[in-house]
């Protein structure tokens, strides 16, 4: 009990608790339309934070994250439609399929340097998207695959909201646990220097593939659940600009902080909605923000702000009297 009390004295723990409470009570104050915006924002938050785990911690700059999301959504949808698999089982099958695809792509790209990995994953995503469009007899192509709603009998978006919010919290909790474990330690070592990590005894192949599989599964489950919320999935969800959006969300938030990447995604999705009247100009503003972040706050705008507020960093750990653990989630 005293551990919890002590933890709550930390500003960051209080902020996290405040955020959690806010997420839980928002449906009491927010109209249905804005609930939809938030649900979509949570979907992107899962994608941005899991991509941050892959790229920021694992050092693997992949453009295939939306493809794994789409695999989760399409496989889940297809088994539900063609094999009459129940909803939850179809989501799990979609998630596993995304993980299997992640295993194959992760193993194939193991020795690729950043540029080649990016090119390979762009090619994979495009091949998948074009295949889905071309195989219209199975996937319904550009017309989109119609799916069963998450809550067929409900006219409210509140249950869907809690499902996506719960999924976001679960995914963040799992990823946070992962980066605090030895897996996170090894991933950061691999990101810093693969050769040195191997010389220190880290099984580089194992952990690089592991993070690829796990983040693919997280993208897959997000895709499968979100597709059943919007009740349709089309190949457009995995076009390159969509992947660019997720990457930009993670970078603006902070690619080396899961929480910052998730909050970045939520804030950007809400901002895009608020700036809708600006039409295409909102993307210009958004692009400029990305450029400013890359130039002046390479660790992420939000991460920089958080670090200022919570005075995070290795010296902060010293003050806490711990032994060199990473602060927040790795900052």
């Amino acid at each position, binding site marked *: 009990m005293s551990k919890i009390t002590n933890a709550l004295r930390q500003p960051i723990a209080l902020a996290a608790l405040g955020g959690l409470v806010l997420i839980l009570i928002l449906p009491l104050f927010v109209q249905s339309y804005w609930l939809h915006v938030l649900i979509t924002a949570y979907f992107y938050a899962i994608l941005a934070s899991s991509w941050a785990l892959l790229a920021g911690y694992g050092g693997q700059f992949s453009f295939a994250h939306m493809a794994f999301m789409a695999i989760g959504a399409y496989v889940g949808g297809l088994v539900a439609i063609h094999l009459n698999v129940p909803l939850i089982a179809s989501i799990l099958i979609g998630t596993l399929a995304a993980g299997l695809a992640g295993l194959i792509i992760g193993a194939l790209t193991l020795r690729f340097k950043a540029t080649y990995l990016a090119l390979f994953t762009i090619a994979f995503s495009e091949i998948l998207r074009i295949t889905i469009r071309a195989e219209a007899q199975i996937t319904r192509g550009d017309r989109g695959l119609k799916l069963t709603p998450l809550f067929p009998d409900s006219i409210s978006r509140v249950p869907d909201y809690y499902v996506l919010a719960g999924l976001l919290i679960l995914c963040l909790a799992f990823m946070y646990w992962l980066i605090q474990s030895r897996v996170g330690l090894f991933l950061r070592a691999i990101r810093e220097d693969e050769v*040195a*990590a191997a*010389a220190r*005894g880290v*099984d580089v192949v194992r952990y690089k593939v592991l993070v690829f599989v796990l983040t693919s599964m997280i993208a897959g489950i997000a895709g499968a659940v979100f597709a059943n919320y919007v009740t349709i999935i089309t190949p457009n969800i995995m076009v390159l600009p969509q992947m660019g959006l997720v990457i930009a969300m993670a970078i603006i938030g902070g690619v080396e902080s899961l929480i910052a990447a998730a909050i970045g995604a939520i804030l950007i999705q809400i901002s895009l909605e608020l700036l809708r009247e600006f039409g295409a100009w909102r993307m210009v503003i958004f692009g400029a923000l990305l450029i400013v972040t890359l130039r002046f706050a390479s660790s992420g705008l939000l991460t920089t702000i958080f670090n200022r507020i919570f005075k995070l960093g290795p*010296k902060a750990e010293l003050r806490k009297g711990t*032994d*060199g*653990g990473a602060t927040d989630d790795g900052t």
Partner: protein
Amino acid sequence: MELKIQDLEKRFGGIKALKGISLSLLGNELVGLIGPNGSGKTTLVNIIGGIYKPDSGQIYFNGRDIAGLKPNKVATEGIGRTFQVTRAFRRMTVMENLLVPGMAHDPQLGRETWQKRGREVLDFLTMDHLRNDYARSLSGGQQKLLELGQVLMTDPGLILLDEPFAGVHPKLMETIFDYITTLHSEGKAFIIVSHDMDSIFTLSERLIVLSYGEIIADGDPETVKRDEIVIEAYLGEEDASA
């Protein structure tokens, strides 16, 4: 500790970097590995450490053939190494740098046990006050010590040091020298690659000289120093005439 290398060959394209290297180390020998630039010293260390696979030949460490094993497997077998250009994990703290080899070696022991071991290693290296600093904030010499600390975490039988004195100021060089001597007296075997002739001749019990991928001399430092082939191939005319 027993290391036995037999007929080790390595090519890079058309260049034969190692030409049938055979040598053995027994007990806690402290061996200096010297030779002119491009003679194959670092290649040999990289092959023993698993970074390169040999084209042919065997490396037996404590009776097990480790030739071609991945670096992490070589580390598990009990061989630790440092690099010519320091490769500490720069955006991780000093303690995290030490936890990586510990947790990779035996995760079952748990983080707290390895932190405790990390503190012991840092105490030995008189770096405990730096444990929560990022590796990137350390000086070049301190990063070399940190690498040595990473190696010591898992208590390996054989330590390969690639240019431990390069780019280190004289005072720290003395410190590193002392650490090596202490560890050697505690039973650790070393293979040390160095261009710093004074240190390596003083430190080593045995010197192996490589030239163009071949061993041209192997013996105690005084004998090697007087070897005419070594003087001609490595030390140059200036020393030969001295």
